[in-house]
């Protein structure tokens, strides 16, 4: 019961994931991104070894389709997994295992995969894909967030007794560093996607402040002062 947008930004070469699910703490499973290598996500019944193995195989130069074959051959329960793999050139493949819970499926686009399981229906995956493509002029992380919000608005997840709330969500973007460019999560919340959006909008202006503070500590102003200035600017902008 998860819906995910895994993608490579054609402009920046960055790779990223937007994800939301009824499960809690989904962020811990988003360890399938590495700059200059590629992006992968194994969901539905999670095989926690898949992401690390897929990244190592991508790093050795295997094509995404070959990596997917290896993940399946390495896993007696592969029918229970839903997996997407994208390499550093943006070539994307995906599989929705026969035994993943309905509605379960994926759509592969140019440099991205929209996929999910235990969904209200195929329209959730369509909505994610269309929202991601429609937001082509936005910053990459905003495209991922827009896609997840579209999935939520198109009905999100549905269990045996009706709709299931998203209880955790995450957006992660990797570029050319050893560390993520953005790694934001909501681990436990009744409306995780809404909480992720508000966390993102609050966090966004801090990103440059944190980067500068590390690079140039001598001139860095204390953070509470920065927070104070930010609140004042927002109050003035609101009037």
């Amino acid at each position, binding site marked *: 019961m998860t819906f995910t947008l895994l993608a490579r930004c054609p402009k920046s070469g960055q790779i990223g994931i937007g994800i939301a699910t009824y499960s809690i703490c989904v962020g811990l499973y988003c360890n399938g991104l590495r700059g200059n290598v590629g992006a992968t996500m194994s969901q539905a019944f999670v095989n926690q*070894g898949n992401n*690390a*193995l897929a990244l*190592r*195989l991508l790093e050795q130069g295997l094509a995404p389709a070959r990596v997917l074959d290896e993940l399946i*051959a*390495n*896993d*007696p329960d592969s029918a229970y997994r839903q997996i997407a793999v994208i390499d550093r050139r943006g070539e994307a493949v995906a599989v929705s295992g026969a035994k993943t819970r309905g509605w379960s499926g994926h759509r592969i686009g140019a440099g991205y995969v929209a996929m999910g399981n235990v969904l209200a229906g195929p329209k959730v995956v369509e909505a994610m894909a269309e929202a991601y493509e429609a937001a082509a002029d936005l910053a990459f992380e905003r495209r991922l967030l827009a896609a997840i919000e579209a999935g939520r608005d198109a009905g999100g997840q549905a269990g045996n007794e009706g709709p299931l709330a998203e209880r955790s969500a995450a957006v992660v973007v990797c570029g050319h560093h050893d560390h993520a460019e953005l790694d934001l999560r909501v681990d436990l919340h009744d409306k995780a996607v809404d909480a992720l959006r508000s966390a993102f909008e609050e966090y966004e202006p801090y990103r440059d402040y944190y980067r500068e503070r590390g690079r140039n500590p001598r001139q860095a102003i204390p953070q509470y002062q920065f927070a104070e200035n930010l609140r004042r600017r927002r109050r003035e902008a609101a009037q």
Partner: protein
Amino acid sequence: MTYTILGRCARTGRLGIGIATFSITVGRYCYGVKAMTGVTVSQAFAHERNNQLALRLLAQGFSAGAVLQRLMGNDRHASYRQIGVIDRDGTAVAYSGPGTRGWSGHVVGENHVAFGNGLVGPEVAEAIAAGFLAEPAADLEHRLLCAIEAGRDAGGQGTRDRHKPERSAALRVYSHHPYADIDLRVDLHATAVEELRRVWTEYKKYETYYRDRERNPKGAIGQEAFMATLRAAEA
């Protein structure tokens, strides 16, 4: 004509091998164990490249089952091998090829593989597995040694009417380091398992002393002085 126990401690993730055989210097086959990766042995007609290949595949994250398939697919004489593999999740698999000699087979369970060939019968493999499982809370090295002794006591190698002695044995355990925590061997001896127990008993007395003198050489007493304390304690 070898019997072996591969084991993993579920609590600490430590990995180890216990092995005894009619062949000599069997310890040199036991390099198929690596911290945070897995443990494997290819025996009967040993394929010497198998261990390192298996460790590399395990290090990439392949599961024990997939590694075993890859080893067999990579070997024209696969039917002559007997292979055990445990990955770092504790999944254990084994294969006893039809080309192996005498009674040849394995008992596989969570975190352990008991297997051998040229044995007097299946009771040896079962005794090894039972020996390993007897004290689940004990240190891995203790469990592995007890497993090998259980295999010996259940009849070990040869046929019912003609027993073959163990002429070499070994015990290796890894935790987190690129070197072994325990690495003991008997390369050539008429009763190798008894000798391994003797070496083990003697070595355990020194284990803490050796580790401390590395960490704190300034404060370390000489080895003879340490042995004097041992003798005093035993007197």
